[in-house]
């Protein structure tokens, strides 16, 4: 099942889902900032992005534009895959964010220098 999912996301990236799409970036930014949706701002500041009182439970996000999209997707989907003791919630695995929403967040993360 997991393999299938990974395959599906790779396929999505490969088929060039419009990650540069500004609407998608905007949607991702909104998820990032909104308490009832992603609420990433509770824990993360982001380099170059003006945020109202970002938290410090997680690192200030920077240099993410250099990350492969798949790595970002995996981090948000389930941070335990790369860090089994992560204090970050698994947004995809627990169904907090949908596949589409995670892709939107990833599109936004890719703009973080």
């Amino acid at each position, binding site marked *: 099942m997991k393999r299938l999912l990974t395959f599906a996301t790779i396929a999505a990236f490969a088929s060039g889902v419009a990650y540069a799409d500004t609407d998608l970036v905007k949607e991702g930014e909104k998820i990032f900032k909104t308490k009832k949706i992603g609420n990433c701002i*509770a824990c993360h500041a982001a380099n170059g992005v003006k945020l109202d009182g970002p938290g*410090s439970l*997680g690192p200030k996000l920077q240099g993410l534009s250099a990350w492969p999209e798949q790595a970002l997707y995996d981090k948000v989907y389930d941070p335990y895959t790369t860090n089994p003791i992560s204090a970050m919630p698994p947004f995809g695995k627990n169904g907090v964010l949908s596949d589409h929403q995670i892709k939107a967040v990833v599109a936004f993360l890719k703009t973080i220098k």
Partner: protein
Amino acid sequence: MKKKVIASLLIGSVAFLWAGDFNAQAEKDRKALQEYLEKKFADRKNANAFFPYSTKDELDKNFKWGIKGDDFRLGSYAYNIGGKAQYEEMNEMPPYEDAVDAGKELYENEKGIKECFPDPAIAGDYPKFVKGKGVVTLSKAIVSCAKKNNLKDWKLTKGKTAKLEGYFASVSKEKGKKVNIVIDSKEAAEAYERGKKEYYSQRGYLKLSCATCHVQGAGQRVRNEYLSPLTGATTHFPVYRLKWQGLGTLERRIKGCNKNQGETPHKPGSTWTSELLYFMAYMSNGLPVDGPDIRK
């Protein structure tokens, strides 16, 4: 004669040893936790290890270092300089004073309350483990007393119960009472262990544990909000929260934090909540009772 004295001395010390035994693990946990927190807030030099994601600016300017023991009763205001200033401003005209007066009124005049609680200076003695009943929090004790006397509208989370607790807390504080949670049976020790396990378990769809935010996370921020430490988390209840515009009990606060971790809140008064509070209160054993207080 002599023999008898020795025998009773022996029995006395055996009983003492037993009592010591049942809370031995809890004592170990309590000391380890306090040591960890004291180390964490000892000085600026080691801060980067404990606060990897905090900004240099806040660590330099907004943190008070060298926090110890009783200081933790202030929650995050023990170390958050900016927050403490705001807190002191709010405390100039404590918004809970009327509620404490109302609590005193209830204590004096509501039927049966005084009989249930002859001594009002008991805020530091709860939760208690009662054989056959399990963990009884102060809110539970009050509500069941009210029920016994057919009194209406006593809830576990706010209103009359919180007001009466406010009165109990302020009398306890005036008398210099300290938190004094007792674990004196195997069953009590088991309830404590269950509470501890829940505190450290990841829960809710966010998979956060209480400890993620209040042990490991103490002093870090969720948005602008500095997280308070587990040591001292229960000493100052009930609290007047700006968000509530009124007094609330520990039961009320736990509901909110269940939501923080993406979990449907457990019922106030449930075994889950009460055992969690038993563990939490034990972690503050020996700290001064400091309620009621104000929180954002």
